[in-house]
């Protein structure tokens, strides 16, 4: 995975997500190239659906650092899902499912990044490539981290818990929260920053106690 190119497309052998079965309204001629994958027509197997469902959170967490907002991460995740579902029978059972879908997600991230001219808030391609590599080597401790996070939130002061709850409830932003509370946006950002810091340190402590290095 340490290839020189960030998001090298050779990392994954899927062709375009052209699935003629899903396209009864395809133009008559010329475009219906050589998409063969006849098996695509059947619905994904139960096993696949189970793996697919489990993969959603890790995939989302894989995509988020490579784009710039949660909304975009959602969008890219959806694109990734569409490709995964149309390619489901190209997955070989027994191999690493998460690696398979990360590779697809990586391509989708790349496509998203290329489709946007104004990349003002995006990290550079090279940095994103490094981050993706980093995450691909990551040990899969996301579950433990999530449990740790839940515990750590429980230890926060009540008003901090409340602030986090407000900030992360249904797509609000720090600005909305500031408005709701009638506080200056800046001070809300500072509080949120402080709380995230506390949470990070708390999680780190728990993870090391738990023995995962």
């Amino acid at each position: 995975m340490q290839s020189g190119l960030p998001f090298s497309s050779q990392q994954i052998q899927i062709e375009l997500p052209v699935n003629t079965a899903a396209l009864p309204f395809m133009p008559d001629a010329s475009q219906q190239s050589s998409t063969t994958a006849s098996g695509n027509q059947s619905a994904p197997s139960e096993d696949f659906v189970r793996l697919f469902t489990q993969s959603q959170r890790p995939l989302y967490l894989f995509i988020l650092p490579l784009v710039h907002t949660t909304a975009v991460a959602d969008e890219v995740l959806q694109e990734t899902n569409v490709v995964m579902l149309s390619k489901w029978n190209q997955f070989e059972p027994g191999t690493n499912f998460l690696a398979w879908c990360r590779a697809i997600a990586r391509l989708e991230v790349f496509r998203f990044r290329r489709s946007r001219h104004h990349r003002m808030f995006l990290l550079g391609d090279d940095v994103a490539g490094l981050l993706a590599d980093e995450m691909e080597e990551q040990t899969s401790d996301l579950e433990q981290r999530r449990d740790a996070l839940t515990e750590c939130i429980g230890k926060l002061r009540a008003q901090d818990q409340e602030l986090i709850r407000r900030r992360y409830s249904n797509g609000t932003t720090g600005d909305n929260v500031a408005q709701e509370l009638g506080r200056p946006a800046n001070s809300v950002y500072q509080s949120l920053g402080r709380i995230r810091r506390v949470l990070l340190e708390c999680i780190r402590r728990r993870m090391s106690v738990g023995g995962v290095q």
Partner: protein
Amino acid sequence: MSHAQDHLITLCNLWCEEQLSSDQLIELQSLLRSDRAMRATFVEFVQLHGQLAWDAGIGVGSQLPNDTAEIRTVPSGDTTSSIRSVRQGSRFSPQMVAVAAACLVLASIAAINFRGMNALQMVSSGVKLEVKPNSDTTIHQPQDPLLSSSHDSASQESPGDHLKPLELNGMRPSTGSPEVPVNPPAANDTVVATPGEIPSTNDDATIIAAIDRLIAAGWSENGVIPAATADDHEWVRRCYLTLTGRIPTVNEASSFVARQSPRKRGELVDALLEDQRFAENLSVTWSNLLIGRSNTRGVNQDALFDFLLKQFSVNRPWMETVGDLIAAEGRSDQNGATNFLLAHLNDKATPATAVTARLFLGQQVQCTQCHDHPFAKDRHQDEFWSLNAFFKQAERQKLVVENGDGNRQPVWILKDSEKSPGMTFYDTLRGQQKAVLPEFDGHAMSADDASSRRSELVRLLATDSHQLVAQAMVNRTWSQVFGYGFTNPIDDLGAHNPVSHPELMKLLTKSFADSDYDVRRLMRWLTLSQTFQLSSEQDERSVAADDPQEGGTPLFSSAYPRSMAPEQVYDSIRIAIRSAADQPIDSSIGSQHRREWVEQFVQSYGTDENDEQLAFDGNISQAMLLMNGQDIQTAIPLTAAEVTKSAHVGPNGVTKSLERIAMATLNREPSEGEEKVFRNRYRALSRSLPADQAIRTATEDMLWAYLNSSEFTSVH
């Protein structure tokens, strides 16, 4: 925690709140590049943020895409409210406002149903899991084709700006009989091109095939799935708007749809290209480009228009038209071509230089008047002035002549001075004075050469090694047909500006030059390509990847909806109203009325390019506000009366009236939702009115609602 780590976390926090400044972003990047521990921390922190976001349900959940709808449905409410405000104070009662608003909302719902049907077809073809996201995500889709154009009005150079075609008020009456003349097709022509061949000849089918091959290559590179082929209703509307600058009449559209010929699209294109209305449409477009819509500089708009019309009617090679415009001499009323330069010779002919470069060469040189181009390393200040030097000989003189009515009318004379103007001097930013000679494409004229500099420029353009005139015309025509050019903006070509389809632009440029700058053939290649046959209903999996409105590279995987130009709106409203009432599209309302109407939107600026701004964003409420005057107030009830004349007699009278006005305005059948609204309205009215009056009033309301919809003012 190290100081650097600490700082990183501060930046991460800003990242999570989308508050990073561009400097901080750069800082963050260099930290992340610098070492692995930093990257690990960044990932750790952002994933912490992501866990919180996911658990709170910002994440889509473990299921399929389904939540984008709420993000994008905003426009419909918006439209309704703007319409509401337009209607206030007009003759309509508040309940009717509600009806019109409901109709509009339903108009978009109808489109949803249409897409929903695609999703259902997919169910039956056995793709089960995919169906769910489709039927959900479709909800935001119709907003795009129908409404987005009016809401993105502020976006840079709106596509509507590129597309300014339209016909003059119909020169001849068009009546009942099937109107689409069918030309015997050339032997080699095919609508569906076969991809995969390399054009070796100058033959239309090969060039069209090459367009489709190169466009399809862009799709596969980007994993984009093209839209379906547009149905006849959708296509015939776009075809008329593109070629003649207005929607088809009911008769034109229905006779096209009813035709059985498998090659009918090619036949219609060929017929329209030969039609006078095509020439008129191009003449309006180019007249607007050359001298603008407002007449503030005393030039003779009519004479220029007549000149252009003559050129386009006989399909004169574009290079010759360009040459005529640049080298024109004589009186502004006798040689219409003179008006182009007469409009731009002010201010040391710097506007003439800039506009010539922009329109004919596709180059933006206006900034290099004062300094070298900041980004384009190949653009230097001296080039501006050496191009400017070609116009230095041109002089204008004012005559005052009496025309027939005894009115005194200013007439200008454009001619070259007898002697050579010598060197052209300019100042650099550092205050140095420099001097240049006329020079283009490496050919300079000597200072004492007394021959016509403008004629020399024309000669150099025709032999230009880069074929810039062809390239600029190809790029502009492409954007007129497809909504976006190969570059953005379309008239700023050069090494500094990326080209979306470089190979295709090159091929079309060469083919266009080889065809002896045949404008009709160029238009034919584009409109007969498979790409032009596509629907504006984008495949939803391709929305993110092919979204030029968001600044992405256009891949032309669907027809991009765009706002009509004001001339198109004007003409289309006329067509819609008159053809609903089954009246001939006569030319009794001259082009003068349309010009006055359009001028209300135009604001001129005395900048270096004699810029003007079009305060027209395709927003129908704006158009209606103006149309709501006499014209529409009287036309709508008369039309409704005409439409419903015999409606109360037959059993399907109510439905037929609705169908008639839907076809006349939107060139499609009414949707179920629209029908329901219409029937309810009719039922409500018939409680207090006799049936014929009830149906007439309901039809009036519905016609008003249709004309008010964004669907009506889009080219899609």
